[in-house]
């Protein structure tokens, strides 16, 4: 009998998700024996055409990581959706937008300005990339960049999400095992994560969650054993799905929410800021405004990974 076919592809991503798959280390060979990897550009030599040639639904499982930022990504998402029995949005970018989603706070023109004009190292030629360039020998084309980054599920129907930036190799492995053993939960479920928040796995001691003032780790050092938020250091753990084992908190810094919102929470950023502000130790209206003023950059502090999947999706530009 033929081995199950699996594929992995990235859209707008950093490659960390593919690295996470490599990070199963020795078990990679085990996997290679057990399945047929039909498409995995990072490591194998299979072409788009090969995927095209497959009958619809021929791929048993596709892990697609990365956000959708160009028409290429979009077409690839549609193709793999069509060819795959099960499509998994792998990693924060595909799941909730991730770091590439920060581009939604700006637009193409602003990015070009920063990269090709304002960067202090660029020379004075004032050239920016064009989608079509005539050369003496012929025309060259570049794909157009979208101004708004989307999550995978905003483009095609997604069967499962596998959160994390990147998803821990163990979680990836477990998800693969579940898929191969036909032990996947009902469609729509989130794989490789818990239904609780980070606090469930966070070893730090919680006494009474009150915040008297906000502190920046730039110039201060938190106590190692105690809840960071209690100490006034921003931590999105309480508003973030568990599954990584509170890696960042264990590393001594606050969570920034890459696992996305816990079940039932519609907007991670809004929920998190509401929670944090609620426990401010302050009963004076004016003072409260001052205190929250101490939090720099609220959007990227509370919605760092989730802007494209949030209710507002992007910054609206005048």
């Amino acid at each position, binding site marked *: 009998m033929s081995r199950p076919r699996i594929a992995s592809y990235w859209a707008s991503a950093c490659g960390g998700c593919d*690295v996470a798959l490599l990070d199963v280390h020795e078990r990679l060979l085990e996997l290679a024996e057990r399945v047929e990897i039909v498409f995995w550009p990072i490591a194998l030599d299979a072409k788009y055409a090969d995927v095209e040639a497959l009958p619809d639904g021929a791929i048993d499982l596709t892990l697609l990581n990365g956000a959708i930022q160009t028409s290429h990504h979009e077409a690839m998402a549609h193709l793999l959706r069509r060819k795959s029995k099960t499509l998994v949005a792998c990693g924060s970018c595909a799941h909730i937008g991730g770091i590439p989603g920060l581009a939604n706070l700006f637009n193409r023109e602003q990015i070009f300005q920063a990269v090709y004009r304002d960067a202090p190292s660029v020379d004075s030629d004032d050239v920016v990339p064009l989608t079509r360039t005539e050369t003496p020998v012929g025309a060259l084309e570049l794909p157009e960049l979208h101004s708004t980054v989307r999550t995978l599920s905003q483009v095609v129907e997604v069967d499962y999400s596998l959160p994390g930036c990147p998803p821990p190799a163990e979680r990836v492995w477990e998800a693969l095992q579940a898929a191969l053993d036909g032990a996947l939960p009902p469609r729509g479920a989130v794989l490789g994560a818990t239904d609780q928040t980070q606090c469930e796995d966070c070893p730090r001691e919680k006494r009474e969650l009150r915040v008297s003032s906000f502190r920046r*780790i730039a110039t201060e050092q938190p106590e190692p054993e105690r809840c960071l938020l209690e100490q006034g250091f921003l931590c999105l753990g309480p508003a973030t799905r568990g599954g990584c084992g509170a890696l960042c908190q264990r590393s001594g810094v606050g969570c920034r929410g890459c696992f996305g919102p816990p079940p039932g929470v519609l907007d991670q950023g809004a929920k998190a800021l509401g929670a944090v502000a609620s426990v401010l130790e302050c009963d004076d209206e004016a003072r409260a405004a001052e205190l929250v003023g101490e939090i720099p950059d609220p959007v990227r502090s509370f919605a760092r990974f989730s802007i494209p999947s949030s209710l507002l999706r992007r910054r609206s530009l005048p």
Partner: protein
Amino acid sequence: MSSRRISIDPITRLEGHGNIEIFLDESGAVQECYFQVPELRGFEKFLEGMPVEEVPRVVTRICGVCPGAHHMAAGKAVDAVYSVTPPPAARKLRELFYCAHFVHSHIAHFYALAAADFVVGPDAEPARRNVLGVVQEVGKEVGLDVLRHRGLAQKIQATLAGRATHPVWTLPGGVSKGITEAERAEVQGMAESCVAFAGRSLELFDRAVLGNKVYLDLILSETYELSTYHVGTVDRQNRLNFYDGEHRVVGPEGQEVLRYQDAEYLEHIAEHTEPYSYLKFPYLRRVGWRGLTDGPDSGLYQASPLSRLNVADGMATPLAQAAYERYVDTLGGKPVRKLLATHWARLIEMLYAAERALELSRDPEITSPEIRVLPTATPREGVGVVEAPRGILTHHYRTDEQGLVTMANLIVGTTNNHGPICIAIRNAARRLIQPGREPDQGLLNMVEMAFRLFDPCFSCATHSLPGSMPLTVTLRGPDGARLSTLSRRGR
């Protein structure tokens, strides 16, 4: 005039995150050759307004293949922004972390990519030319050995920083966590194993490549030769260092032309933009932009393992030094211009990284609790430069007095080599694609090898793409119409 048209797969470009456009004249000879990078993500912009201490944990997402490099460069830049110097323990921990990064990054490149060409063979059929093919070739034990040591190097990082991919460890003036004696001992063990493994890798290279006349000739052939400036980082004794030191530039003839500190990079490095690619072309400001040409009059420079070994007077560790001497002799002295030797240089760097990691892991000071100096100065501006596996990496931030980023500039490993990559590809194409000869897979792979030896990581380069880079090669007729498109995987 008439020219043969080969059918085109219109969507093949979808797969290509980088493409090579080769234009042929009537005779079928290469007329012009372009290399394009079609994506951009714009970190420079979306770091604006962010608290600068958050930047090191965000820029790791520039590249999931070398997050460690960006984390280190950013960490150094942020130290500079707050004009604070980390305590010795923190500095050593960072370098140890970083050496481990070099070990697994170079393992990945050599075995998953280069070895496919040399161990499996440049013109073997594509289906086998991959990491699994390599494993078939060298045997499963070696395959497991490779994967295991890639894992060990990452475990060293995770032990130090809490996580290997996308660490959140560096803070202004130090790191967020230290290590216990038990952890130190464990790291030492892993480092020892990596040193041994790096040695085995060099032996494999000896056997499989240097021991093979065909491959040796290929390495020494003029097809893969380039004469440019080289940039790399050296310590006080002009020996290679990855984490910090002075940045030294040597000319096409190997003579030192200048040295600069992190903060001085703008005086020496400039970037040129071409409208047909999202990727910029860095060059030496002093020499200037002369277009895509090599030689002493062109400001283009290489920044690669090859460059680093050309720039350094030697290696800081014994085994690596020995390997380095043999390398220089075999290739007829410095500067080494044979591009394919980059793979060899990479293995020597892997050995150095492992040795250096071992050295540092034995230093009792790394278990000191003094891992951070809290900044007191008003944040302003800072530049952090490290050697990334694929070339020198520069992060530059300006902030307001609240420490919110007002400007971010990034010149990353692969970008440095953008110009040289284009030239190398063009040269290879011109030599290999001759009138009347049908370009086939093997031949195109040879073209691709010119590009792949730089281990281009366009995730870094475009701050937008994954480390691996499937490549599309398009042949175009005189009228610019696409004759054929052949796609290749990346690393």
